[in-house]
C-alpha cells in the first residue's frame, strides 16, 4: 500500500452499551436486543421509520453505520461486513412460520431478511451508496481479511473510504464493531489497532 490508511472512527455495540471511539455514548438496561436498538435509535434522534421493519441484524448494522456515517457521508464509501451467524436469527424465525402445515403463513416481510447482506442494502439505501458491498461469513472476527480487502478496494480506486463491520447477532447475543477506513485520521490502519479496538 503506497499511501497510509487510517481508522477514522469506530463504533462498538455490545452488552447494552454503544461506544464511539472508545467512549460510551449510550447505555440501556432494555431486556432484549430489539428494545435496546430501538432505544439507541431514539437516543441519537435518528428519524427513519423503515428501521422498525428491519430484522435485528439489520437494525444492529444500520445503527452502527449511522453513528459513523452521519457526519462523514461520502458517496464513495464501500461496505465490507462479516459475521459468524449469517442471518440465522431471522432464518429460525422464518422457519418457525412455515413449520406447521396447518398454520402455514410465511411472512414476506420476514423472508426478505433471510440473507445477511440485506443489511448492506439498508445502509446503501439510507446513504445513497452505489459502491461495492460484500458480506462474508467467518468463524470469528478476522482482521487480516478486513485489512487486505479494504486496502484493495481503496488501492484499486473502487472506493475512497471503506466502512468495515463485524455485526454478529443470534437471539440475544450480539456484538457490533464497525470502523471507517480512510486516508484521513490519526490511528493507523493496522491489525494491532483493529484488534485493540475490537476487544476494548
Amino acid at each position, binding site marked *: 500500500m503506497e499511501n497510509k490508511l487510517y481508522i477514522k472512527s469506530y463504533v462498538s455495540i455490545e452488552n447494552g452499551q454503544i461506544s464511539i471511539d472508545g467512549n460510551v455514548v449510550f447505555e440501556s438496561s432494555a431486556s432484549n436486543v430489539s428494545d435496546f436498538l430501538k432505544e439507541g435509535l431514539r437516543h441519537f434522534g435518528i428519524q427513519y*421509520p423503515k428501521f422498525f*421493519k428491519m430484522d435485528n441484524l439489520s437494525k444492529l448494522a444500520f445503527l452502527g453505520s449511522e453513528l459513523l456515517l452521519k457526519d462523514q457521508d461520502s458517496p464513495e464509501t464501500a461496505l465490507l461486513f462479516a459475521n459468524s451467524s449469517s442471518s440465522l436469527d431471522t432464518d429460525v424465525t422464518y422457519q418457525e412460520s412455515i413449520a406447521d402445515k396447518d398454520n402455514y*403463513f*410465511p*411472512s414476506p*416481510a420476514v423472508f426478505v431478511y433471510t440473507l445477511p447482506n440485506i443489511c448492506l442494502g439498508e445502509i446503501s439505501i439510507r446513504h445513497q451508496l452505489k459502491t461495492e458491498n460484500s458480506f462474508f461469513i467467518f468463524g470469528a472476527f478476522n482482521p487480516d481479511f478486513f485489512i487486505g480487502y479494504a486496502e484493495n478496494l481503496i488501492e484499486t480506486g473502487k472506493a475512497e473510504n471503506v466502512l468495515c463491520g463485524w455485526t454478529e447477532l443470534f437471539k440475544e447475543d450480539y456484538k457490533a464493531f464497525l470502523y471507517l477506513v480512510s486516508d484521513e485520521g490519526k490511528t493507523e490502519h493496522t491489525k494491532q489497532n483493529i484488534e485493540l479496538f475490537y476487544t476494548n
Partner: protein
Amino acid sequence: MEALKQELKEKIIAVLNLEDVQPSDISNTDALFGDGLGLDSIDALELIVLLDKDYGIKLTDPKEGKNIFQSIDTMAAYVEANRTK
C-alpha cells in the same frame, strides 16, 4: 363496519410494524400506499397474508390488491363481502 375498520387499522399497525402510528392517525379514506401511509410492495404482500390468515380470503390475482388496499374503507368493504372467518 366501524368496528371492522378499527380492527383493520390495529392489525395493519401491528403486522407492518408501523412504530409511532396510532389507529386514530389513519383516516378511513387515507391512501394506504404512496403519499398516504407510505406502505411499500412488501407491505402489500403482508396485507395479502393478513387477509388469508385472519379472514380466510385468498387473493388469487395480486392485481386485485391495488383496488382492495386503496384505503381502510375499500379494504373493510372487501373483507365484509368476502370473509370466510
